[in-house]
């Protein structure tokens, strides 16, 4: 099964015009040119992809690895079967 990082990468590539090598664990969202509005928009897609809900004020992420960690935490907290929809 694809890792959370892989699935997040795919999500980025589906929603933005980045090149695959631009999106790595250490990439910061700032490097990707994403502002707070973009991140709010992208959170919706993350919620759909991982079947989680991200509570307000609980998604303070700087890098993609931060995002992976947060998603994994929500998956375990919310007891969600981490299977891909695809």
């Amino acid at each position, binding site marked *: 099964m694809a890792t959370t990082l892989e699935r997040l990468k795919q999500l980025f590539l589906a929603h933005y015009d980045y090149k695959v090598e631009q999106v790595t664990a250490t990439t910061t969202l700032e490097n990707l040119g994403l502002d707070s509005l973009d991140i709010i*928009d992208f*959170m919706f897609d993350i919620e759909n992809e991982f079947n989680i809900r991200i509570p307000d004020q609980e998604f303070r992420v700087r890098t993609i690895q931060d995002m992976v960690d947060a998603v994994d935490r929500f998956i375990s907290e919310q007891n969600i079967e981490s299977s891909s929809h695809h």
Partner: protein
Amino acid sequence: MKRRVAVTGLGIISPCGNDIDDFSSNLMAGKSGVRRISSAYSSLLSVKIAAEVDFNPFNYFTKRQVSTMDRVNQFALAAASQAWKDSEPSLDAKEKERAGVYIGCGMGGGSTIEDLYDHLFKHNADRVKPLTVLMVMNNASASYISIEYGLSGPCLTLSTACASSANAIGEAFRQVRDGYVDVMLAGGAEAFMTYGGFRSWESLRVLAVEDPEDPSKSCKPFSNNRSGFVLGEGAAVVVLEEMERAVRRGAPIYAELIGYGSTSDAGHITRPSLEGQARAMAEALKEAGLSPQDIDYINAHGTATQWNDLLETQAIKKVFDDYACKIPISSTKSMHGHTMGAAGAIEFVVSLLAIKNQAVPPTINLDQPDPECDLDYVPNIGRKGVKVNTVMSNAFAFGGTNAVLIARKMEE
């Protein structure tokens, strides 16, 4: 001091072409953009025709932009981009503060609203796309244009139904003329091709019945067998620029915008008024300092509803008197449909192209003239080699707002 205002750039997204050259040649050739509706819900409708824009947003925008802007915003930005490139106004930081955006739009992000309600009520969604508010709000198009080009003067959205973008251009003209700004991007956009939208127009009984032999011939302005308008969508944006600046930098000058008439019928919410329309035309002539004999072409509002075409004909006769029958008049809605909030701007562009090409586009599907609509509507075949120095473009709206623009060819 009143300054002169040049039109120095044109952009268009329309059912008859997504650039100025295509649009111009299609209209002159009498090619209709009306066809069967592509959406799946069309089978549910009694009227299954529309003038849709053939538009692949990925040819214009990033994935992010495509998913976070309504179709109407995409149309507006695409048209603005053409106009900007055409004009190349090259503004420095200071000049951008004296440049603005006026955009007309009737319904804002109509398809986003429909998607929203579909998710909520039909599919019981418990949450909706985070940028929904920004995709629905009617002023998003103007704001995105202002952001794209860094224009930090006035940025307004005018919503007067079918006159929206004629008002936007007219009011922008006055901003430049009266010295508040030096450059304006002005125009309009509409994309209200939704199931709810079609149902609403259908219930109001104003949509054209499909022509039994050829759906593309369904809109028949000024014809005895006209049955209503065909819903269209699209956008047009023009660059308005203070004349001395435009001349100094050698900008392409399509025409000088010289007159604007803005009136309200103050009568009935839908039924047009001869008086209101006539006053708008007369006021535009007065502001332009012209007499009726100076007008060489009128792009009529010409919706192909019973009331509009009859009253517009009578209003033109009232203003132009004996000269009315000598002016070529066309309703290009017969080809590009009724593009609502975009109509005034699209048809102003048609009028400017008449000056540029010294040719007037036809009113197509006019085989059975209405005896009460007895002016020269340029039936079916466009005319080339016509002297067109001065043009009038009419836009009359539900709500009773009337907006008329007059432009004149630049002397050589």
